[in-house]
Every structure is written in structure tokens, then in C-alpha cells.
């Protein structure tokens, strides 16, 4: 299939970028989106041009490294799909595809489509952990956790930190990412005691990184490859408010 691409090219963090046109006349519909970009890069390298930089790692949809804004949507038009799991068969022959980096002030472009998501790491470092050593995995029945609670906590823990929530949010809010981590630990007995304090610290870091506020539009949960619910944002708010009310 024949594809026309319009891709964001930017030399470095300080340079001014622009959309550049590329033509790929012979794309295999079974290729993943990233494989299609690999083919384009090989072509660019052969012709002596600078290849397009983009983040990727596992290419199995679980590492959260890949994240491109494709045809106006985070991770492209499919739901519950990371960029690496998006395949060219979902496009039509002759399509023009816009490829841009995830955008937010807190996610500066490093080069081309590659962005710096270390703001997420710093949010996790601010409180997304359990302070005490909880030892090895305990015997399954030693700590009673209800099935539904385990399921809900796991749903939140499924966040891969790709940043699609921020990229798609009209306020560039990181509430779904932070909420997922706060909520995941708040629901489990190991994480629960520190929960309000954790919510406060992580929200403060989220603020310091320059992310926007949450207006509950729900766009993030639609674009999230792991389909994490905005219910977790509410749980973060609840934990945060609990801290504010009970603070000594």
C-alpha cells in the first residue's frame, strides 16, 4: 500500500520544528506502525539523511515507551492500543498520515518524535512506593485481599506510563497517571497506611512539573492503552482530601 506521511522533524530541544512530507510507495499492510517507520528510516539512512528519532522498546504494548500522536489521536485511531500494536492494515491505501510527538510543556521534545517523559519518573519518586521493606511475596492467603479489590488495584497498576493521557488532555493534566499509581497502592494493605501522604506528595510533584488540572472530560480514559478508568482520579482526590482534612 502507498502511504504519504507528514512527520514532525525537530533537530533538538531548542530548535524550531516543522512537519515534513515523506512518501512510502510500498508498505506491507501487516507491518506495525513502528516497522513502517523503520522502513522509512532505512530509506533515509541509505540516502544519507538523518533518520527520524522515536521512542520504542518492547514493541509488545507493555513497556510504555512508544507513544506517537497519529492522525490527531494519541496512539492513533484504535482504542486500547499502543503505537507499536497499531498495524498498517488499519489505514487505507493512499492515506496521508500525520505523525507528531505527544505534546505538553512537561514533555519537551528531545528530537523529532522523541520526548522527555522524566516528569513521570519524578512523580513516582515523590511517593509512588511503599517506604518499608515488605519482604518477599507473601503466601497468597496470608494477607486477605478481596477478589474485586485485587482486580481494581491491578487495573490501576496496569498503567505503562506512556503519557497518552497527558497528550490528549485539553489541560495537559497528568491526573490519570498519578491517580492510577495513588489508587493502586491505596487499595492494597501494604500501600494503604501511607496513602494520604503519598497522594499529597505526588500531587505536589505533578504540580511542580507543570501539568494542568483535571476537568474530568474523560478523554484520557478513552485514549489510555490500558483503559484505566478516571475513577482512579477520584480516588486520588479522595485520598488527597483525606490528607488535607486529617492533617495534624
Amino acid at each position, binding site marked *: 500500500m502507498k502511504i504519504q506521511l507528514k512527520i514532525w522533524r525537530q533537530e533538538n530541544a531548542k530548535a524550531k520544528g516543522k512537519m515534513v512530507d515523506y512518501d512510502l510507495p510500498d508498505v506491507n499492510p501487516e507491518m506495525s506502525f513502528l516497522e513502517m517507520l523503520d522502513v522509512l528510516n532505512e530509506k533515509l539512512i541509505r540516502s544519507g539523511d538523518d533518520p527520524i528519532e522515536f521512542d520504542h522498546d518492547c514493541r509488545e504494548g507493555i513497556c510504555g515507551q512508544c507513544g506517537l500522536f497519529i492522525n490527531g489521536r494519541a496512539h492513533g485511531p484504535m482504542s486500547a492500543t499502543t503505537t507499536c500494536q497499531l498495524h498498517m492494515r488499519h489505514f487505507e491505501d493512499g492515506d496521508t498520515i500525520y505523525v507528531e510527538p505527544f505534546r505538553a510543556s512537561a514533555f519537551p521534545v528531545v528530537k523529532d518524535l522523541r520526548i522527555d517523559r522524566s516528569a513521570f519518573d519524578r512523580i513516582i519518586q515523590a511517593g509512588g512506593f511503599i517506604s518499608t521493606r515488605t519482604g518477599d511475596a507473601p503466601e497468597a492467603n496470608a494477607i486477605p485481599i478481596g477478589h474485586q479489590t485485587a482486580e481494581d488495584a491491578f487495573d490501576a497498576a496496569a498503567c505503562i506510563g506512556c503519557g497518552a493521557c497527558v497528550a490528549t488532555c485539553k489541560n495537559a493534566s497528568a491526573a490519570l497517571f498519578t491517580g492510577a499509581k495513588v489508587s493502586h497502592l491505596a487499595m492494597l494493605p501494604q500501600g494503604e497506611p501511607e496513602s494520604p501522604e503519598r497522594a499529597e506528595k505526588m500531587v505536589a510533584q505533578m504540580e511542580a512539573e507543570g501539568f494542568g488540572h483535571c476537568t474530568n472530560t474523560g478523554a484520557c480514559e478513552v485514549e489510555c492503552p490500558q483503559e484505566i478508568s478516571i475513577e482512579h482520579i*477520584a480516588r486520588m482526590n479522595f485520598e488527597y482530601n483525606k490528607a488535607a482534612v486529617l492533617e495534624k
Partner: protein
Amino acid sequence: MSRSLFLRDSVVRKNLMALTGLFLCLFLVIHLAGNLQLLLPAEQAQVQYNHYSELLSHNFFIKAVSYALYASILAHALYALILTRRAKQARGPQGYAYDKRGQVTPWYVRNMGVLGALLLAFIIIHMRDFWFQYKFTEMPLDAEGRKDLYTVVAVAYQQLWYVALYVVAMLVLGFHLLHGFHSAFQTLGLYHSKYNRWVKWAGYGYTFIITAGFAIIPIYMYFTQNQPLP
């Protein structure tokens, strides 16, 4: 009033948006309940509504609540402005060249600020035409010697453009509430998978009653009292 308490971060600011918003939601119920008296037969409505207006303007409790109300409107608008400006910075100067993000959410959810600004404009017009007149101008009196607010309202609603303005403003209010009501609960953290369906439906029901209730008054008065009162 330490800075940290009211401006600490976006969650605190959003809490204030939610609390003032819900307070305004509660006010709308009381306001609508009072205004439904306008739907009574003209003579009875005139006596009762003027009596009600006088009662409200002389009640200390109502006065105190009304100041909380003005403060809430201003705080709600001010915090919206602060948050929106910050969100603009968070989005960054470079937008998307091709942007289809609108596909995943309804338009009114993304445009609460625009709807809110329109509502603020409407509130100013609304208060100038009725509240200001009642409080600060010489008004004709009714048969019982009370300020005749009823006639001022009835005369205003005999102009078709004015009725249209009110109906449009109520539609704006409706879309603002449609998202705002349950969004406030989500912001405050009062949102649970077991109950959020009920909160959502309560929000839809509330929105319908408030919007339809307020919109019906000018329409009804336009069609039933299309002649000047004595």
C-alpha cells in the same frame, strides 16, 4: 487564609471550583422553587411574588447567604480563569498540526469555560434588570404597597427577544450543569463505581429540571400575560 490552603495546587483549586459550583447548584433549586410562583394566575402571582420578594430582601439569613452566593460566583469564575491560564501553559506553545482529540469527548465537556463566561454575562444582565432595579431604584408599588417586582418581570417577558435570550441562556446553563454536576463529585473524590451511575443520572435529572423549569417561566409568561397589568 494561608496561601497554601487556597492556592496550593490544582486539586485544591478544583475542590474550590467543585464546592462553589455545588453551592450554586443548591441555590438554583431554591431560586427555581421561588420563581415557580410566577406560574400562578396573574393576580395571585403578583401578590404572592411581591410578598415573597419583600420577605427575602428583609431576611437576615437570606442576606448572609446572598453574600456567600456572590462570593461563590466570583470565586468560581476567578478560579476557572486561574486554572485555564495554567492549563494553557501546561499545553505549551506548540499545538498539534492535526488535531482530532475532539472525537472522544462531547463538545460541552471541553468548553465549560466558554459556557461559564456566557453564563457570567447572563448573570450580569439578569441582575441588572431585576436585582439592581429592586434594590436600588424607585419602583412602582402594588395594591398592597409592596415593590411591584412581578410587573417588572411580566413586562420584561413580553418582549420576544428577551424571552429568547433567557431560553438560550438556560440552554447554556443546561450544558454547563450536564458536565459540571457529576464532575464536581468526581473532583471531590465522591465517585465510586457502585454509585457513579446514580450520580450521573441524578445530574441529568437535576439538569433537566433546572433548565426546563427556568426556561418555561418566560415562555409561559410571554404567552399568557401578553397585556400590561393594571
